[in-house]
């Protein structure tokens, strides 16, 4: 599975993602500057990393979503290939309208940086195919705008279509919902996918929970392996 990571001015999780993927999947990862107009490697997976693209000016992810590379990212996704946005990358995906909704300021009004627990809500997509539905995993969060918002009617459709992939949860009981969302996210939503299941956006950072010496846990490693499995098995269908 060939992977590329897009680097925007202000991305700060780009190298973490590169390392997490390359070490877990034993593969090289292409780093692509946002001013490029195409990918050299014809990747199977493109990752928009976390950070503060363009200083989060105007709205988080707004300027990054209008970068030259985005046309190639849209083509990549339209071809059914895998596109993953983490944190600021998720914000970029909503700003490009590749995923519905918007990420608003946390109800706490503060930047939140801590471990978060999320329940895998569905596995019928390319990203969580190798995880267990209903299992609670720990990936840290680090954001100021992580409140997932969508108008009520559209939110209901999203839920009905089974496109909520991750929801904040209680690690002890496994119960998930809005009451466990540290940021006030509607319905406790932490990650969603598109209809085809080839685009995923999530606020928590699996790359920060991939190698044990970072002390963010190791649940993220299974996430990368899950994507590789989803890619191999579902692409063959």
């Amino acid at each position, binding site marked *: 599975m060939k992977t590329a990571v897009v680097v925007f001015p202000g991305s700060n999780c780009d190298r973490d993602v590169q390392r997490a993927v390359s070490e877990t999947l034993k593969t090289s990862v292409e780093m692509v500057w946002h001013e490029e107009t195409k990918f050299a490697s014809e990747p199977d997976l493109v990752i928009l990393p976390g950070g503060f693209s363009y200083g989060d000016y*105007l709205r988080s992810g*707004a300027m990054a979503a209008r970068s030259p590379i985005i046309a190639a990212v849209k083509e990549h996704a339209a071809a059914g290939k895998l596109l993953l946005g983490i944190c600021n990358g998720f914000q970029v995906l909503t*700003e490009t309208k590749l995923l519905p909704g*918007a990420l608003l*300021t946390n*109800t706490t*009004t503060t930047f939140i940086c801590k471990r978060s627990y999320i329940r895998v809500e569905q596995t019928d997509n390319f990203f969580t195919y190798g995880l267990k539905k209903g299992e609670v995993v720990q990936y840290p969060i680090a954001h100021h705008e992580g409140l997932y*918002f*969508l*108008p009520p009617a559209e939110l209901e459709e999203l839920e009905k279509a089974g496109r909520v992939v991750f929801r904040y949860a209680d690690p002890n009981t496994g119960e998930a919902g809005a009451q466990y969302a540290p940021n006030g996210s509607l319905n406790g939503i932490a990650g969603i996918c598109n209809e085809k299941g080839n685009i995923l956006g999530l606020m928590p950072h699996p790359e920060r929970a991939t190698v044990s010496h970072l002390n963010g846990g190791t649940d993220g490693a299974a996430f990368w392996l899950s994507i590789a499995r989803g890619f191999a098995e579902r692409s063959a269908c």
Partner: protein
Amino acid sequence: MIFHAEAIITPREGVLDTQGKAVEKTLTHLGYKGLEEVRVGRIVTMRIDAESGDAAAEAVKNMCQDLLANDLIETYKISVREA
């Protein structure tokens, strides 16, 4: 002609405005009574060279749609005057 244009962008009704709520709380602490709702938006100002005021307004409208406002969560108002 040079025009001075302004786009006032505000959160749509029904969209949670955490910043507005924080400001409202502080204003209430300061003793201001009767506050029902505070919403916080942003103003983008620019000088723009255009053939007419209408043309300048049209250009700013396109900028709002393309970048300055996110139509899912924000609305905007445009005003234009000769610089």
